[in-house]
């Protein structure tokens, strides 16, 4: 579905490449979690996926990115937007209209879809994300979490095969962050491919079925989140496993590899060996 082949990218004006010899393949239906310190190259990797790099950002790019077999260099960002939807960190800077339904319609209008189709898709995404009550609200008066949900809805309405999110919860409170994680989990279950770069591993690791760790522009670890987070050496790359992992280790329930609090409790109840030493 998405294929990054040996890509090195250096932003114009910077000496070091932001990404070095990165290769990655993302299959349909995956929930890929990207972890890594700020400035490790997470955002650059995401910008490659919908063609913002090389179309919007100037710099030097080696290797190639294929979206559904199409080289991103050959297609415009607008054409790619039908395949890959990108949601940014700051919800304020990606909302462009004054009312929620208009915001969701915006991308569809740009694609020139007929009005009936637009109305249908607005109904559909509002329902899917459980925000029907926001339909006629002014975008300025929404809370941060609601704004981010609207931003997700507006990208989702364009029916991309893959939805890519760049630290969607970094500006949100814990409650809204959990809601975003839940929404993404549901979308993935319905068949949408999700790629998300995040620091909140406690919320996203339980939903993901694959995880990569980026450090200094290279992919340094790749695997199932359970496997990676219990391996113990990922903190070398600045990624801190969620507290559930630490607790599980402390109480010796590492066999079940729980990632969510619920899983930890179940594992403890099953009477997995509890070692308090």
């Amino acid at each position, binding site marked *: 579905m998405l294929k990054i082949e040996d890509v090195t990218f250096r932003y114009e004006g910077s000496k070091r490449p932001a990404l070095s010899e990165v290769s990655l393949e993302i299959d349909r239906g995956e929930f890929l979690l990207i972890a890594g310190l700020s400035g490790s190259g997470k955002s650059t990797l995401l910008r490659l996926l*919908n063609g*913002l790099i090389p*179309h*919007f950002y100037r710099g030097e790019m080696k290797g190639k990115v294929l979206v559904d077999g199409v080289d991103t260099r050959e297609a*415009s*960002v*607008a*054409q790619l*937007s*039908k395949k890959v*939807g*990108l949601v*940014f960190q*700051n919800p*304020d*800077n*990606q*909302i*462009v*209209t*004054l*009312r929620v*339904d*208009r915001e969701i*319609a*915006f*991308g*569809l*209008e*740009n*694609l*020139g*879809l*007929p*009005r009936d189709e*637009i*109305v249908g898709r*607005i109904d559909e995404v509002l329902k899917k994300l459980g925000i029907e009550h926001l339909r006629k609200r002014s*975008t*300025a008066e929404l809370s941060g979490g609601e704004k981010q949900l609207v931003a997700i809805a*507006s*990208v989702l309405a*364009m029916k991309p095969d893959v939805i890519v999110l760049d630290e969607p919860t970094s500006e949100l409170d814990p409650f809204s962050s959990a809601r975003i994680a839940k929404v993404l989990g549901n979308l993935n279950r319905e068949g949408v491919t999700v790629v998300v770069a995040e620091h909140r591993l406690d919320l996203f690791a339980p939903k993901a079925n694959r995880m990569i760790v980026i450090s200094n522009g290279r992919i340094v670890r790749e695997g199932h989140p359970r496997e990676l987070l219990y391996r113990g050496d990922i903190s070398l790359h600045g990624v801190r496993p969620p507290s559930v992992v630490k607790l599980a280790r402390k109480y010796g329930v590492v066999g079940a590899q729980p990632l969510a609090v619920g899983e930890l409790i179940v594992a403890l109840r099953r009477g997995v060996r509890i070692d308090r030493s």
Partner: protein
Amino acid sequence: MLDPMGMVEIFRTQVGETSYSKLNPLTKLILFASFIALPLISASLLMQIFSLMAQTPLIILSRSERRVKRSLKASLLFIVVLVVLNYLTTHSLEFSLAMVLRLVSMIIASAIFMTGTSPAEIGDLLTKLKVPLQITFSFVIALRFIPVLADDVVMIITSQVSRGYELERGSFLEKVRRLIPILIPMIIIAIRRGHQLAEALETKAFGATEKRSNYVVYDYGRGDWILLVYAIIVITVGLMVGTLTPQFQLLPFQY
């Protein structure tokens, strides 16, 4: 007696929908243009009284009676001063009254239009009038970012002040100079926001197709037709009133 807030009461944003705000924006624009043009047809007092009276249905439809009344009451002193000043320069009480009424009726017409039409509707209206998308969109985007940038300014001021920066000190020039540490971060933040906005627009295929479709469509209801006919009648009657010879000489200015 002086009540500046009362004077601008008429321009206060309307909360909730009224029969006026639900009209097609084009109808609203035509009505607005008619009522701006009407008092300009002739300078006679009769004309001004007529154009003021003709606006009654719109005042009622937009439920602005109370706001109009309060504004007029608060502006009474101002109106009297204007009439007196006019009288002193023209020596014609009728002319002075006519000019002030003309001003009042134009203010009422603009206030009804501005408070009853949402910025988004104005944007759509401009698009319909074939104004290029880049311009109408900049207009909407500017409005969209006013609250965001206002928050930024508050944040910058509080963070500078909490680090001991004194904003209000010294002479006028000194105070202006002291704004620089507020303005520079402000400009940087605005540029950064602009950049991210451009990324988001790109991602949402802005400008991808020549033929952009429209989600919001406005149809013409019965109310629109009635009011359009009303506008035609008012302008026709106005033109007839305008042919009557004025009882005073036009612009008898004295130096």
